[in-house]
């Protein structure tokens, strides 16, 4: 029974460490997917000039999963089912920092509101901004992501040793 409890506490501490670590990975993946999405938009707006709704729906489904529901919320807005606000769009994207949310919200607010030339310029400007954020996310993930996991394991081991 005692060994089982030790094992359980170790697993729990490791899991908590993993959760903290995953937060950094999710943020990194989010911005990778967002940059890919913006690049795709920029390309398609210039080439096919297809409507936003179609472009979003046709975006790579694997990458869409990394967008943490922001794309889905934006589609709801396009269909006039929801407002475009921080509360509605980031329901599942709690891992983002406040200033990151502001940038992403601004990006979605500008979509579809101007002609090809200006829309492309705006998207490209956002891509640069998101790239900078992604670099920061990379660094933070390397620095704190693996640290969180290691700390979780160490904390688990520490508890196990004490209980033993």
């Amino acid at each position, binding site marked *: 029974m005692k060994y089982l409890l030790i094992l359980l506490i170790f697993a729990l501490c490791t899991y908590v460490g993993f959760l903290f670590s995953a937060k950094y990975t999710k943020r990194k993946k989010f911005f990778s997917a967002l940059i890919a999405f913006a690049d795709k938009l920029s390309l398609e707006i210039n080439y096919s*000039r*297809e*409507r*936003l*709704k179609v472009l979003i729906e046709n975006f790579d489904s694997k990458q869409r999963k990394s967008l943490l529901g922001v794309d889905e919320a934006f589609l709801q807005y396009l269909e006039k089912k929801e407002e475009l606000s921080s509360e509605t769009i980031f329901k599942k994207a709690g891992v983002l920092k406040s200033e990151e949310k502001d940038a992403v919200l601004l990006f979605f607010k500008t*979509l579809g509101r*101007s002609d*090809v*030339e200006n*829309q492309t310029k705006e998207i490209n400007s956002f891509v640069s901004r998101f790239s900078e954020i992604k670099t920061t996310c990379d660094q933070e993930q390397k620095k704190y992501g693996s640290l969180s996991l290691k700390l979780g394991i160490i904390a688990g081991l520490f508890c196990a040793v004490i209980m033993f």
Partner: protein
Amino acid sequence: MLEKILPEKFFKIISEKVNLRAINEIRLRADKPVVLNISGQSFFLCETGATSNLKNALYASKIIIEDVIFRASECSIYSVNEQIKKGFIVTDEGVRIGIGGNLIIENGQVKTMSGFSSCNIRIPHTIKNCSSVALPFILKDNIPENTLIISPPGCGKTTFLRDFVYQLSERNLALNVLLLDERGELDCNINSNFTDKICFSSKKMGFENGIRSLSPELIVTDELGQEEDIEAIRYACTCGVKIMASTHSESIEAFSQKPLFTNIIKEKLFKRFVVLSKRNGPGTFEGVYDENFARVYISR
């Protein structure tokens, strides 16, 4: 359709308290009251429906107008910029939205329009059989004569043309019809088995390409208004293609005085002129005239 583009509040009032079928236009101007054109008369939109009293009127704002245009473009202004440059957007349902704002001009060319300050939502209506009365005077041995529909704006020219195409198909007149739809509003709700269409092309280009590639027997097009349109008509006539077109004019007399049409009147390219008015509401059929402007049929 209106549900998608209008603010929820406006749509709710219009759909619940105004007869949607009777609305011809909805005009929104920044910081001005919303105006409904109902059966040819203007009213203000208010909480209880339509009113003549300005005090109760609901106002549109610049943000509302921008949002209407954004929604009408299916949230993709970039995809309809070519239309916006010409001052309108046509939705998939054939609703034409005229737009007012600031034209951005670069090197003498219109690049786009910004700062939208007004819009005019024109709601198309299908009036079945509205062209039936005129049909016997237009058809000769089951083939339409070259015909021009004449009326002031908002009198049902496009509705008449749409119904005419429908009537041809209904009567099994297996004519290959080419719809040359410069603004994308002629095409909506046409259920015809013998119709091809070219949309958003100039008349000159549409006539040339259409005649070469689709071999139509009849070309139906809206709103002749430029010298190049007349040239396109002349070209079609020399190719033996029949024409059904429309143009703006107050009356048959005013039309006959228009310099743009002097030559084709002399050449008698059009054999029939159908005159519409708003006398008893949009689409009032006034009469049919022949190439010498003699009355073939007159409505009482």
